[in-house]
């Protein structure tokens, strides 16, 4: 079977990686970020925070790319596992990431199920929706890295263009006076919002794993930084639009500000009375990309890093079952938000620890190997 060989030899190009990064990051953030910021900061300055944290994330991505350039063809955990001590750290990190990705899938499925329950299918049981969703994502992960990346790059342009079209349609409703006063309470609220906006950039961690599938001279930082820039701009415009239309006080109490934004749209010609079902359907594609990528990573981590000695197709169904049970541990939207916050903390810690450990290991290994080279030359 020649075609199968070609599939394993698949290499991600840098443009595909950049688009996948957008696909992974854009998820729930689009829907809930403005409200979270309004509650946390109590000012309308969220857009400044987004730009600032966009800068931070760019810095992270830059470091990750630089690190990856040192060991092309292997992912971060595989690189760590090459050392004696690193082997155990990499197992630990793999477990931590596995838990994180499993929880991400559960969180997103639950979130989706709630939105779909509210806006699309009020009478269908949530369990059924989640079940179909997980079935679909299991089908997606059966196509491997190439399938996941290709799905990302097929859906993301659609989702992004629709999101920007919606914002453009909103422009007539803008009341920019709502955005004033700018920085009325000084810099402190900006720092308060920083954590919240950093959370909405979670998804960067896929770089740890997917960049291993890239050619060495293809690993460049600039396209990835551009995609972070695009996401920052998307968040920025959504926050501006939400505050400009609803004002600070109503934004605080709207659960899903983006969906309410869509409700405000008047389609010219009146083909559709309400557009939010269509928006949710299209936004579902973006959510699905995130779910499928996280599910895929959880699945591969489980199979390749954690339990490599168990053969057969049993692990995937078990993982799906764990995700399904985990999805229904949270009982209400409030609990889900709390769960999301823990999850985001875990994700952030994972990213920072992974970057730190890998940098230290890299520094240690180069330091150890350099003297030996010099000795040889001498």
């Amino acid at each position: 079977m020649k075609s199968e060989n070609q599939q394993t030899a698949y290499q991600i190009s840098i443009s595909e990686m950049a688009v996948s990064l957008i696909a992974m990051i854009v998820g729930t953030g689009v829907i809930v970020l403005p409200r979270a910021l309004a509650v946390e900061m109590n000012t309308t300055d969220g857009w400044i925070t987004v730009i600032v944290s966009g800068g931070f994330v760019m810095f992270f991505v830059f470091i990750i790319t630089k690190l990856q350039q040192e060991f092309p063809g292997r992912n971060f955990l595989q690189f760590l596992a090459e050392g004696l001590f690193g082997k155990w750290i990499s197992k630990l990190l793999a477990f931590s990431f596995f838990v994180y990705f499993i929880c991400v899938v559960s969180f997103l499925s639950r979130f989706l199920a709630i939105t779909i329950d509210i806006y699309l299918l009020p009478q269908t049981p949530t369990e059924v929706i989640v079940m179909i969703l997980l079935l679909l994502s299991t089908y997606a992960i059966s196509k491997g890295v190439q399938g996941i990346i290709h799905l990302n790059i097929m859906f993301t342009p659609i989702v992004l263009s629709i999101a920007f079209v919606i914002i453009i349609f909103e422009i007539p409703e803008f009341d920019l006076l709502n955005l004033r006063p700018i920085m009325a309470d000084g810099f402190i609220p900006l720092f308060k919002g920083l954590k919240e906006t950093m959370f909405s950039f979670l998804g960067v961690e896929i770089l740890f794993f997917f960049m291993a599938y890239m050619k060495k001279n293809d690993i460049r930082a600039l396209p990835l930084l551009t995609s972070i820039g695009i996401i920052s701009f998307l968040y920025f415009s959504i926050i501006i639009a939400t505050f400009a239309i609803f004002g600070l006080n109503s934004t605080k109490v709207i659960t899903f500000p983006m969906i309410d934004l869509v409700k405000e749209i008047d389609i010219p010609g009146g083909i559709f009375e309400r557009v939010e079902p269509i928006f949710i359907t299209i936004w579902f594609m973006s959510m699905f990309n995130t779910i499928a990528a996280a599910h895929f990573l959880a699945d591969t981590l489980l199979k390749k890093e954690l339990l490599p000695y168990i053969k057969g197709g049993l692990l995937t169904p078990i993982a799906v079952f764990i995700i399904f049970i985990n999805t229904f541990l949270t009982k209400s939207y409030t609990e889900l938000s709390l769960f999301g916050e823990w999850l985001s903390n875990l994700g952030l810690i994972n990213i920072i620890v992974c970057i730190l450990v890998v940098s230290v290991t890299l520094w240690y290994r180069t330091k150890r190997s350099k003297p030996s080279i010099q000795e040889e030359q001498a």
Partner: protein
Amino acid sequence: MLNKLFRKLNKNNIHSSDEFEVALSNNLNEMVESLLKIFGDSNDIVQRDFKIAKTKSAVLFYIEGLSDADSIEEDVVKPLQQIKSEAINEQKDEVIKQAIQDSINLTQIDFSANFDDAILPFMSGKSLLVVDGLAKLIILGTITYENRGIEEPQSEVLIRGPRDGFIENLPTNIVLIRRRIRDPNLTIQLGKLGRRSKNDFAIIYIKGITDESLVEEVRYRISCIDRATIEESGTIEQLIEDNVLSPFPQILQTERPDKAAASLNNGQVIILVDGTPFSLITPITFEQLFKSTEDYYDRWQIGSLIRMLRYSAAFIALFLPSLYIAMISYHQGMIPTTLALSIAGAREGVPFPAFVEALLMELTLELLREAGVRLPRAVGQTIGIVGGLVIGDAAVRAGIVNPIMVIVVALTAIASFAIPAYNVSITLRMLRFFLMLLAASFGLFGIIIAYIAINIHLVGLRSFGRYYTSPFAPYRFIDLMDTVIRMPLTINKKRNDSEHTADPVKQK
């Protein structure tokens, strides 16, 4: 796993081969007897006895209709009878052979030392000459064809473009391609397929453009076919495609030589089979299902507009009925109020849910379409009128369906006819029912689930190892200029999927 199962099911003993373990002799009567034994009881085999130079007896066999009887009489029998040379009576084989070769007025004369090499040409229309005293079978190229003329293909009608189409005869079809590409690098490799039918087929590609490994793969897959008869190129298509379970065609078929030539120029491989006007193009990508050669003949604005129309047609053909069902059953709020009221009014007398209504109308339409294809052309039109007007109108009046449903179904039908490849519109039809079912169960959520599932299937699909969704995924930015919008020819200078072709530039 499925492959294993199929392999087990297909496991059977190879039938007795057609090797004839009979030695040639130089006795004429023995030879004739052995040949008659091989030919069996067929009555259409003509045996013509005559004497060379009025002394040496000879027998000529040919199949009525396959061989040109006039040419045999004029160019073979007559010259041999009137041979004056004394050489014919000598004992040396070489001298006799030379004398025969000199007198026969044909281009193809072969001497065979065994039956195996002679029987297949004979069965294809060549004639066999047996001469007394010569332990050789003489194969004479007397093949004639019963041809229909080159006509415009009925399955792919163009407004602008050449009017010729492939016919059932392989050499003619090869000529049609050769006439378009007069390049010595145009490579035509002939072969025979089918254990019993021994159909001729040709693998055609341009050396220096097509990737050699691709040609190798095509050759390999075709050589794996072991089947008694090859009825049509569709048989080959099904036996060499990558995924048997996929509803999407992974090999394109065309009746148009200009399309075949354009594909060759894109680095694709053409497979022609004797006995059918349909040639196979491989490998293909998803977007090629929506391409027609006409797009390139008209100016780019026209081509782009038609492409966009086709993509929207595909969208309508796939999604419209399911969107209707979803909106009527789940998301009534999306429909503008006045329209919603009028739909509600129209649906008041309809006893069925939207899904049943849509299924009923779609099934009726599929029936009408199938019936229209089978019936003689004149009657077919009548069926269209009866079906479309009478049933549609009557169904509405009887209160079985509502008028808007009729509009939806009609639009869907028209849209599915707008796609250039016939088999693709059938793919969309199949998927439409699947989508309707999901829309009836989950509304818009079901539709997007189906859309994502189709996409997942497509990203996993290959056509001869190439990604089916290219150039959408993986991105090929230059090729994207020639998908939904066809940019001017001056911009599209590269071949499609240029990464895999040996010579990526087609225009300077």
